[in-house]
């Protein structure tokens, strides 16, 4: 990147600066804002279906306001629309917010900054990655407005339900748009992922060995590898589904008699789709979670003024989780009639993941021990992330057990589990990341008081929403039910649903504190200093006002790991990575 400095004198137009930008910092902001808009849409959807679930069959004018007379006649949600909302909420949150939004924002922002590169390996591919993401988002949102409604077979879109327009209205044009949107999303994700991998491998600055990389970069690097290896499989699954839907093939279809007619498709098997889907679907969980763990590692170390405990064990556990994530997908399919022996193998591999995960949790807690903790909003969100990671992780031990899964599969217990361990953990970390790196994005600081208010509302409501759902699951309430008043055995649990809905709606409204703070701070926030949190990593050595190529002079040289906080014998409680080692001083805590 020695040629990077030539960019400095380049004349910027509005289009090349804000629209078709190839600068990683701008692309990061584009991903963040798009992700936030998608998140708000996904969140409003969840509030709408929570209204139905909390007060089943009652009329709400707001449902009618958002969905109109077709999907909410007299303010009562239509069952098909309920399924559509659940489906698109899941799709948006998993893919658009927590994959595109999270990785897109922080991989773009942090990789060049923290490894000491002027930009991504390919700025053009990076730009394409964003534009495919935007196109895919626009198509997904457009599918909400068509006559038969958006895809509504659940975010996993299992055929035959998703393959046959006769099976439900959402499997018509809505499903086609879903598949087109996801295909573009996969392209975006691959363009981004390849770029991240290549950049980390090739563009590290002098002295930045792999074992000096901040854990955020390790996490984003491994995440990108996971995505590059698993998203093509989803693409294959989607392609075969497109063939089955539109060209009369029978990869997933056989022996079907629907809407009073025999379908002449034979020889396919829907379980094949499930295998292909979950071969992406499970690594996808870690594509969401690993960047969250990476961000948390940085924020906790910085604000505890203490090295992250067990740096090498943390890298080891990231690698172990990544490897194992490819051989556990069958735990989503224990009850599909697959060979019980195979189920046993998947139980074993799944429970193995608990070990590296436990190591990570214990290491975070040890990092806090004897630290010197500053409670910035980012730090609070990171502590919350460790809490949700544990609270949701432990119930995974139960669900991983094929025998116990028999009775808990597809119940609210699963909903509670994955929302806490994957959804909340990643969202908490994403908030932490935004509060922490906001100065590097906009050269301003966010308001701390509003940050505190936002944190407590979010954290309390998050547990208020998902913790009680374990009890629904243990009572046998299936997920994706429009109402459970059709079964008298669930009557005692109505008050749980009401409580959950109240927390969900209050939690959703309190996100507007964040949005207000975010927008206000961009325009009117106080200007930040160069290194507000006293961090060691390289991004804080760049000027407050961002420039192309990141560093005005030559690239910085790295002399030590990223975690020399409160090192004995140093005047300050941090030592940036650019400070040379003194004679006899050991790097990385004497590794």
């Amino acid at each position, binding site marked *: 990147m020695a040629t990077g400095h030539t960019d400095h004198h380049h004349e910027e137009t509005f289009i090349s600066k804000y629209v078709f930008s190839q600068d990683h910092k701008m692309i990061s902001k584009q991903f963040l804002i798009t992700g936030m808009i998608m998140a708000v849409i996904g969140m409003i959807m969840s509030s709408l279906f929570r209204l139905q679930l909390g007060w089943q069959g009652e009329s709400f004018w707001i449902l009618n306001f958002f969905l109109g007379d077709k999907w909410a006649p007299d303010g009562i949600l239509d069952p*098909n629309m309920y*399924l559509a909302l659940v489906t698109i909420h899941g799709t948006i949150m998993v893919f658009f917010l927590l994959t595109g939004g999270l990785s897109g924002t922080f991989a773009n922002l942090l990789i060049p900054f923290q490894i000491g590169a002027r930009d991504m390996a390919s700025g053009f591919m990076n730009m394409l990655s964003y534009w495919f993401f935007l196109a895919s988002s626009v198509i997904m949102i457009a599918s909400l407005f068509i006559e038969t409604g958006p895809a509504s077979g659940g975010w996993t879109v299992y055929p035959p339900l998703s393959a046959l327009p006769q099976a439900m209205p959402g499997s018509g044009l809505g499903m086609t748009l879903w598949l087109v949107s996801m295909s573009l999303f996969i392209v975006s994700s691959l363009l981004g992922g390849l770029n991240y991998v290549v950049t980390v491998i090739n563009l590290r600055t002098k002295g930045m060995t792999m074992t000096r990389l901040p854990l955020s970069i390790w996490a984003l690097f491994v995440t990108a590898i996971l995505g590059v290896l698993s998203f093509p499989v989803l693409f294959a699954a989607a392609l075969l589904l497109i063939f089955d839907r539109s060209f009369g093939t029978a990869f997933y279809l056989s022996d079907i008699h629907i809407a009073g007619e025999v379908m002449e498709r034979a020889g396919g098997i829907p379980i094949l789709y499930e295998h292909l889907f979950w071969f992406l679907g499970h690594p996808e969980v870690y594509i969401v979670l690993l960047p969250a763990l990476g961000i948390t590692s940085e924020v906790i170390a910085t604000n505890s003024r203490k090295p992250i405990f067990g740096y090498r064990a943390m890298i080891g556990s990231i690698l172990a989780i990544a490897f194992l994530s490819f051989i556990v997908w069958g735990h989503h399919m224990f009850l*599909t009639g697959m060979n019980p022996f195979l189920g046993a193998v998947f139980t074993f591999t799944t429970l193995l993941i608990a070990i590296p995960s436990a190591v990570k949790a214990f290491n975070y807690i040890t990092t806090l021990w*004897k630290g010197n903790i500053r409670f910035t909003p980012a730090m609070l969100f990171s502590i919350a992330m460790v809490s949700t990671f544990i609270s949701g992780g432990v119930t995974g031990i139960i669900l991983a*057990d094929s025998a116990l899964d028999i009775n808990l599969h597809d119940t609210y217990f699963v909903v509670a589990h994955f929302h806490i361990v994957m959804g909340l953990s990643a969202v908490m970390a994403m908030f932490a990341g935004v509060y922490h790196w906001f100065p590097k994005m906009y050269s301003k600081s966010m308001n701390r008081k509003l940050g505190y208010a936002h944190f407590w509302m979010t954290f309390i409501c998050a547990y*208020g929403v998902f913790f009680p759902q374990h009890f629904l699951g243990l009572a046998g309430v299936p997920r*994706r039910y429009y109402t459970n008043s059709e079964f008298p055995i669930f009557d005692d649990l109505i008050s749980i649903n009401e409580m959950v809905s109240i927390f969900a709606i209050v939690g959703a409204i309190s996100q507007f504190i964040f949005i207000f703070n975010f927008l206000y701070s961009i325009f009117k926030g106080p200007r930040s200093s160069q290194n507000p949190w006293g961090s060691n990593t390289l991004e804080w050595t760049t000027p407050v006002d961002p420039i192309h190529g990141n560093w005005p002079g030559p690239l910085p040289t790295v002399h030590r790991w990223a975690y020399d906080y409160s090192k004995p014998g140093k005047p300050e409680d941090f030592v940036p990575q650019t400070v040379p080692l003194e004679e006899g001083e050991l790097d990385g805590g004497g590794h």
Partner: protein
Amino acid sequence: MTIFLIILSLALAVLAAAQLMRVFEASAKLKGGTSELPSDAENKYQAKMMLVFLAAYFSFFAWLVAKYGDKLLPESASEHGVHLDNLLDFNFAIITVVFAITHVFLFYFAFKYVFNKDRKAYYFTHSNRLELLWTTVPAIFLAVIVIWGLSEWIDITMDETPNDAVVIELYPKQFDWTARYAGSDSTLGASNYMMISGTNPLGVITDQSLESRILELETEKAEFQSELDAAPEGGVKEVEMIEKIEKWDRILAKVRSFTDLDAANRMLGNDDILVKSEFVIPRGKEVAFKFRSRDVIHSAYMPHFRAQMNCVPGMVTEFHFKPTITTAEMREKTQNENFDYILLCNKICGAAHYNMQMNIKVVEEEEFNKWMQGQKTFAESITPAEENGTANAGEKDYVISMIEY
């Protein structure tokens, strides 16, 4: 107009909030509190909140257990379910302890080690001994969980079904279930989805059903032929009818090929018994379920028996269990005289997924045998003509409701 007013007032509220923020920030600047880092007071306050949250979180947990703990599923009504419940309790004991300990440490450390500018954090980079400890301890507990869990799984899924088991096929479609008992020969008759008709909702293949299905297909084909003859040449209708006739020919060829099945095989379905809305099973006898599906994936979930299996079109899945508590006994135990065991659908299958149910009745074996004798066999049910008519009407209703959606 209302919408416009709502948007206008929201916009004004945001503007007002922005102005208030500026005032607050200006006053904070006057007090000198504009540092980017939290003040001592803020740190101390948040540190205390960590403990408050910890207490609140645990109390919430305890309150939920106290309030809803007895509203969960009653004791298992199947033999293997009791083992599963023990395993679940053991798992819960372990994870609750882990959850509690880690949370106490997490929030207590956060509280205790709050920032103090006169203190330096302890430079503690790693400890092989500690890390070994918390790799091996979880590994040991997980080994116990894996070994116990898998031995239950193997017991449930891999043991042989006894010969005297009651064999039942559950056949779902959007949005109901049909149960088929194997009858006196304990063997389900062959079936195929192309055989499905108004009187034969599961497509069972017997001499009688074959004959009536072939007749039905030929009648339909003849109707298409006459429509084709009446259709104007070169029109859309003509193409549509030609395609239909071709399709019907293919189905007919397939259905006729079933007559090649050997005669004994075609007898098996005659004594099968089809029931809707409720099925009965005997206590203390193994019940072997087989599952197919007519349209999309469904999942047969019987929570009181700790039993579940997906129903997948194009393949047969299986599950078996032994009921141990009759419905009457469970009504007494739960002190609920309306209690019924239920079968629900637990895989998203369409608009009425939430209301796809069937009652399950567990009775003593004698009563079960008596009940079985009172049911019509498939051979008996397929003959009367008026039933044929009503079933067809039902089918049509269903088609209309699909179009409505």
